[in-house]
């Protein structure tokens, strides 16, 4: 009985992140090496509803945006956000987490 309960708890704990998984967007934007620019885009993205985290990958010139499950950021929306931050979105990709 104990083993069964333990197994159930372990299964629940293991599956929780999967159940809560959202989407990750990778945005290629020029000019990220200047923090005035990078912070500006970061600020706008992190204040967008449903965005969980924003990471800047300077080596690759990428912004990595993770959103909550059920939240979708369209390319048009992302283009506008990047544009409002003073830059141009070069390309983007998305993948479920």
């Amino acid at each position, binding site marked *: 009985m104990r083993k069964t309960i333990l197994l159930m708890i372990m299964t629940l704990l293991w599956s929780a992140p999967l159940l809560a998984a959202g989407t990750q967007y990778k945005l290629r934007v020029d000019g990220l090496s200047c923090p005035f620019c990078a*912070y500006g885009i970061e*600020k706008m993205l992190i204040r967008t509803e449903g965005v969980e985290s924003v990471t800047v990958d*300077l080596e690759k010139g990428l912004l990595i945006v993770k959103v909550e499950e059920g939240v979708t950021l369209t390319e048009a929306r992302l283009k506008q956000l990047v544009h409002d931050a003073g830059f141009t979105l070069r390309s983007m990709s998305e993948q479920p987490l």
Partner: protein
Amino acid sequence: MVRLTLFVVMVSTLLLSSYAWFPRVKEPPYQLVKTWGGKGDAPGRFNEPTGIAVSVSEVFVSDSRNARIQVFDFGGNFKHMFGEPGDEAGQLGRPMNLTVANGELYVADYFNERIQVYTLQGQFLRAIGKPGAGPGEFNAPGGVAVANNGDLFVADFYNQRVQQLDANGGFIRQWGTLGETGVWAGEFNYPTDVAVTANGTFYIADGYNDRVQVFSSNGDFSHKWGGPLAMNIFGSFNGWFATVTGISIGSQGNIFVADFYNDRVQKFKPDGEFLNTFGIPSKGPTHTTIAVAVASDGTVFVADYANHQIQKWRPGKK
């Protein structure tokens, strides 16, 4: 005869413009005395330093991603630090350029759209401004200067303007057109920092216009410099810029400019005459020289963004 005159005029113009646009260094080279820091979150380490200021004996550093201000003596010895991530009073969201004035530390709090003021010991005193585009409101303040009477000059980065506020944050006036970039005199392209002299003349780091703009104490445009015609033509020649991210005034009245994408400080006379340049080249992918502060003895401290460190430079001996 006409041809000869034309030729002489052309050659003279070229020579004059080459003198003006490609000036030579006029001083002995600055010497790098030491560096300190390195990436991390322990005391004395940094995660993206973006601002720097000095008092009579201390160096204050915006340790941006660590959301704190660190304080050192002039030898680089850690003394204390303050601030933590957040948007409550005294908390910080990406501190940028700093200013020490009238015995207080002024912090451009980029994420929280405000200027925060602390004692030099780190006690929070007050916050000025709030998010927005109205008078006295900010959209990503990048830097601040404080006049003798306590007035603030704030580089309001995304609003494309510089605002003058009284000591309580009351709006006085602004330069630039709200939300619009431009290359003509009095227009801005993402202003990042401001420095003001004792007589009220103020110098604006006009970030992506790759130039410095100068205004007299009555607010009139005075002059500008940075590349040919100072109209958003970037480059790596002496006197040219590739994104101006910080500005400071030395005790002799000379102007020190952080020239970010060129990884160097450039030094000018108040009229814009180029004097000297120094810096540590970047190994990529980002850049080194983002902010500069000058002590009364001429020592120059640089916030080195790429290497997460502080550089200390001394003027070369004549």
